[in-house]
């Protein structure tokens, strides 16, 4: 009798779990639906609209004329916009490369620091970046300004004797961008460097490799995932940036991000701006895909 009851209970529980299991697809779908619907409406749909818009044209008063054509794209492939695109690509790649060169030794330092100090040292790197983005760029504006703090410092040290006039140049843009994106490079690099087992380096030393060789043959290859992730995290936002050139670059430094912004808010040629956005997206995606294929995908991108 008792065993019979227990058996019945067992059966009941089994059917309950089966019910949940049977419904689990429905449960998952219910949980994901708000995100799916929200992101479809405010991310996917707007991107589809921009894609369509890029094939339409602008009327005399800035309104959109619903007539399919390719002129927006052909207009982009002239000398002026070609130069802007090459320049944007240069700034984007330059920012990424400098961040990698500056960030690698720093990440290496962090990974080598005593375990107890590591999280504090990392925290100290991230701390300033919780302040406002515009504020940080503004700080560079007052540093780089002609006759400003950097000039005064360099003249006081007798390194230069005239203002460098750095503000409103591509160099200023590059400095601002590197400052802004350095943490994006350091974080994934540190994550992958920190994971490297010390025993591997000891083994290399035991086998007679001098430290520099151990670094090139062991540490460097093992930090590739971090480099890939850091490069992507730096390159994508750097390519679309228009705020830094706006504040530090002056009128001469125009990136593709500035072109897009201007078309939407001042020139009011939306279809043309949409076409420029498509080009920017395709360019970033293509380079990122090519790069990840070549170097292997960085798992650290997810962290």
């Amino acid at each position, binding site marked *: 009798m008792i065993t019979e009851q227990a058996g019945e209970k067992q059966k009941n529980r089994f059917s309950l779990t089966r019910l949940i299991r049977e419904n689990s697809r429905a449960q998952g779908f219910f949980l994901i639906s708000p995100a799916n619907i929200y992101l479809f409406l405010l991310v996917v749909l707007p991107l589809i609209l921009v894609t369509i818009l890029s094939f339409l044209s602008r009327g005399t008063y800035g309104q959109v004329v619903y007539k399919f054509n390719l002129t927006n794209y052909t207009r982009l492939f002239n000398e002026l916009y070609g130069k802007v695109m090459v320049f944007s690509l240069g700034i984007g790649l330059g920012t990424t490369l400098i961040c990698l060169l500056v960030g690698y*030794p720093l990440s290496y330092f962090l990974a080598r620091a005593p375990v107890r100090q590591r999280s504090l040292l990392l925290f100290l790197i991230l701390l300033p970046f919780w302040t406002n983005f515009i504020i940080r760029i503004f700080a560079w504006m007052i540093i780089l300004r002609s006759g400003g703090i950097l000039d005064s410092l360099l003249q006081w040290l007798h390194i230069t004797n005239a203002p460098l006039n750095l503000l409103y140049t591509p160099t200023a843009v590059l400095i601002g961008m590197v400052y802004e994106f350095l943490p994006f490079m350091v974080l994934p690099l540190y994550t992958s460097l920190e994971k490297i087992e010390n025993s591997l380096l000891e083994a290399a030393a035991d086998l007679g490799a001098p430290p520099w060789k151990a670094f090139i043959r062991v540490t460097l290859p093992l930090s590739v995932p971090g480099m890939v992730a850091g490069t992507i995290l730096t390159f994508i936002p750097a390519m679309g940036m228009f705020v830094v050139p706006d504040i530090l670059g002056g009128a001469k430094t125009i990136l593709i991000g500035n072109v897009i912004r201007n078309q939407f808010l001042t020139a009011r040629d939306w279809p043309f701006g949409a076409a420029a*956005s498509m080009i920017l*997206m395709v360019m970033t995606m293509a380079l990122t895909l090519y790069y990840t294929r070549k170097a292997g995908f960085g798992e650290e991108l997810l962290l």
Partner: protein
Amino acid sequence: MSEKKPSLWLRIYSFMVYGFIYAPILILIIFSFNTQKLNVRWEGFTLEWYKVLFNDAQIFLATRNTLLIAFISTLVATIIGTMAALAMHRYRFPLYNTSETVMYIPIVIPEVVMGISLLVFFVMINFTLGLTTITLSHIAFNIPFVALVVRARLHGYDRAIDEAAMDLGANELVTFWRVTLPTIMPGVLSGAMLALTLSLDDYVITYFTAGPGSTTLPLRVFSMVKTAVTPEINALSTIWVLIIFVLLVFGQIAQRKKA
């Protein structure tokens, strides 16, 4: 990695990079107390710019807008993002891969493209630009980041404790409220923190989705930087930096005490 201590050169180099990271912030703070208007040379100590700042009605309004947008968008994005993270971690459902791809779009496309696409969308459906459109847009870019952080934290989650609760008679809902949610709370909170920071900091998306009367602090600071650079911006930055620093340092201390 560890054991071998970083060499002297590496330590000097790192110290210099830390200098590069902190110099701009320190300079901003120092010059907020400067009597000279141009932010070029130190002339004398004053609190004048703080007085100007506290009497600036536009800054007050912008602060209110910024906080309002940040709180609402964080709350909504945290709920939707946590639900999505749970779904992706525990369930297999129709369109799983599509949902995952869509989640990554806001993270991988350049911000300016997301900004203009939202502008196009709101204008096409005749939605008046303002605080509502900014908040809706912030929720959109925050959902994926919350989901990402919560999902990372769910990685080591042992479902056996859920099963134990259900064996003891709790239904799905009770199990979620009393067992699952408290366990993943640290992840949910760090997701919410990230969302809050991203929202407070956002310039690009806000810029494209803002309308008259919905200026936020980053937008206000930008227009101040572009028109007339006065130490009032330094004063504002100093207060902003101080608030963030105090919050973060307290957060760190609280976390360490717990651990």
